[in-house]
């Protein structure tokens, strides 16, 4: 490289380095799994977050400044999430972070945001440790244990007492199973057996043969649509006709596509009620379909919600982050597609659990579980 070229390159590098802040922008960071096994959820999450940012920018941004979403792929893995969080905080200097990822990665990122005093709004990770990282971490999802308890209530509402658990062996599945098992005795539910499977499993033939011989009245099976779709399909093909209760992880149109006719009647406990009369929910569902020509799922709705809460907070502080933003989010009440949310002292939300049922190839409202004692999120006291 000759000197002239070198000079140009150096000038260009400086221009890139120091030229950018000339038009200031409010930066929101997000970690999402865009590659690897969770890439599909990552795409939904990112689509949700982008929609929230586009909405806000269309309405003038924050304090007249445009919002910029800084995106890092964390592959749903802690070892990718920690450097991603560090880059967001140190290099990109985001004022607020959003997690559009799973529990394992979010648990790794949360303490870094906490240490840097950058508020971190977590969309759909359900592990208890997430909010225990400290007071800069907020969560819009219902914790796994709470959802598990709601599952037990739903089983009891359906009049079923003999249950087999099919548990996904990760943070998500285990938290759900813990909640279900904890609440089951209160409703007189006996758990005949619990089986576990791991996330790459798609073939459940052996397990289903055993479940058949257990002869349960209901199955409580945790999983994501890509495990639950094949599972429910294979259960019905093997002649198991009892109701299946799933959770947020099933909440995707893809579940219905994969399980096909077998998906009819499957119940899921989730946070998105597609038949909600709330104008915010309906507007979100409509906008999402218009933007991506696909129906929104729980992950998209939750990440949209988490991002909107971060933006609402920024509007209150005039774009300032740190403690001011933390206080703004703490004290706010947010009208979102997944309900009106306020945070408790541990920064968990208290909300009803939506039960959706697959009917005519779509999710519809089955019932709403609203039991303040059973669904109480943990607080600082416990």
């Amino acid at each position: 490289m000759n000197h002239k070229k070198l000079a140009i390159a150096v000038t260009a590098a400086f221009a890139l380095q120091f030229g950018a802040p000339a038009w200031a922008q409010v930066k929101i960071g997000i970690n999402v799994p865009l590659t690897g096994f969770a890439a599909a959820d990552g795409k939904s999450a990112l689509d949700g977050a982008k929609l929230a940012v586009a909405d806000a920018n269309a309405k003038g941004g924050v304090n007249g400044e445009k919002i910029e979403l800084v995106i890092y792929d964390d592959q749903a893995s802690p070892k990718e999430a920690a450097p991603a969080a560090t880059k967001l905080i140190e290099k990109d200097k985001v004022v607020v972070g959003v997690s559009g990822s799973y529990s394992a990665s979010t648990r790794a990122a949360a303490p870094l945001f906490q240490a840097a005093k950058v508020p971190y709004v977590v969309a759909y990770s359900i592990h208890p440790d997430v909010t225990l990282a400290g007071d800069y971490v907020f969560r819009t999802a219902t914790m796994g244990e709470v959802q598990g308890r709601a599952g037990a209530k739903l089983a009891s509402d359906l009049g079923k007492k003999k249950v087999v658990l099919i548990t996904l062996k990760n943070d998500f599945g285990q938290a759900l199973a813990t909640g279900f098992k904890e609440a089951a005795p209160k409703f007189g539910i006996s758990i005949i057996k619990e089986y576990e499977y791991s996330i790459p499993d798609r073939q459940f033939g052996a397990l289903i043969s055993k479940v058949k011989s257990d002869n349960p009245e209901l199955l409580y099976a945790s999983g994501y649509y890509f495990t639950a779709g094949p599972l429910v399909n294979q259960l019905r093909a093997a002649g198991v006709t009892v109701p299946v209760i799933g959770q947020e992880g099933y909440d995707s149109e893809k579940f219905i596509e994969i399980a096909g006719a077998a998906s009819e009647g499957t119940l899921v406990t989730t946070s998105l009620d597609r038949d909600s009369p709330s104008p915010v929910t309906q507007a979100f569902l409509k906008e999402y379909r218009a933007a991506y020509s696909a129906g929104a799922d729980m992950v998209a709705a939750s990440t949209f919600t988490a991002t909107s809460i971060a933006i609402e907070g920024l509007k209150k502080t005039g774009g300032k982050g740190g403690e001011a933003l933390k206080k703004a989010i703490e004290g706010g009440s947010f009208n979102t597609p997944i309900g009106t949310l306020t945070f408790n002292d541990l920064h968990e939300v208290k909300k009803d659990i939506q039960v959706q049922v697959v009917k005519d190839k779509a999710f519809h409202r089955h019932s709403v579980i609203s039991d303040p004692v059973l669904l109480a999120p943990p607080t600082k006291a416990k």
Partner: protein
Amino acid sequence: MLFVELIAQGLIQGSIYALIALGLTLVYGLLRILHVAHAAFFTLGGYVGVMVANQTGSLAAAIVAAMIVAGIGGILVFRLCYQPILHQPPFVPLIASIGLYIAAEELFRIIFGPSGLTYGYAFLQGQVVLFGSLRFKLAEIAVMLGSAAIIGVLSLLQTRTRIGVACQATVSDPQMAESFGISLRRVGDINFFVGSALAAFAGVMVSVLNNLVEPTMGSVPSYKALAIIVLGGLGSVRGTLAAALVLGVVESFGTVYLGHFLDRNAIAFAFLILVLMWRPQGLFARSG
């Protein structure tokens, strides 16, 4: 009855493993390469299958197309990726193979999207009831019969045709075979074509069973098939078949009775360690 059902489920799973592992054995026998990227042809088969099936409405067309496309892909990988580095130490092709697999997985994700494709037609979703209470999906029966038929025809071809005999000769002594006028390249082409086509057939059948083709569907087979060929005594076709079926059945019981302690996908390796402690030459190979 549960016992019989678990064995049957194990054999179904085992025949899928056999189809995938056979290609790996053929390649190992010939080139002494652990062909990790083989699982990419399993995934490729799934994608070609689902697209052709949804376009034409014919599962037979889907299977044929998937096998041909994967077979040609296999030859390309042999010619473009492995042949130039065959003289390098064994870890070089191994690393190339792992890299190729990762690249393929990401390529599938970029081209077809992360959330997977499903069949627009309900192929082989009907049920068969045998002996009163044993229920199988047609697809499950098809995968077992299909594998048995394909493997049977292959073993006939291997012993009854000139090229089959040439392949066997090359595997047992490549230099001697070459001096008798057998083209190593041609034998390589055939092995890669057949092996990749078998993996593609397995890919179509698994995706019909699950009604799902995803970019990551090859990740478990990629390493499990390695365990199977080691169990079968590297390079032995019969050993690989037996190891695949035994592993299928062991996993079937393991999932149900050991699920709490041992991951289903870890069973293959736990089993592998046990067998290698007792028979380091593999479960079915002659010692020495």
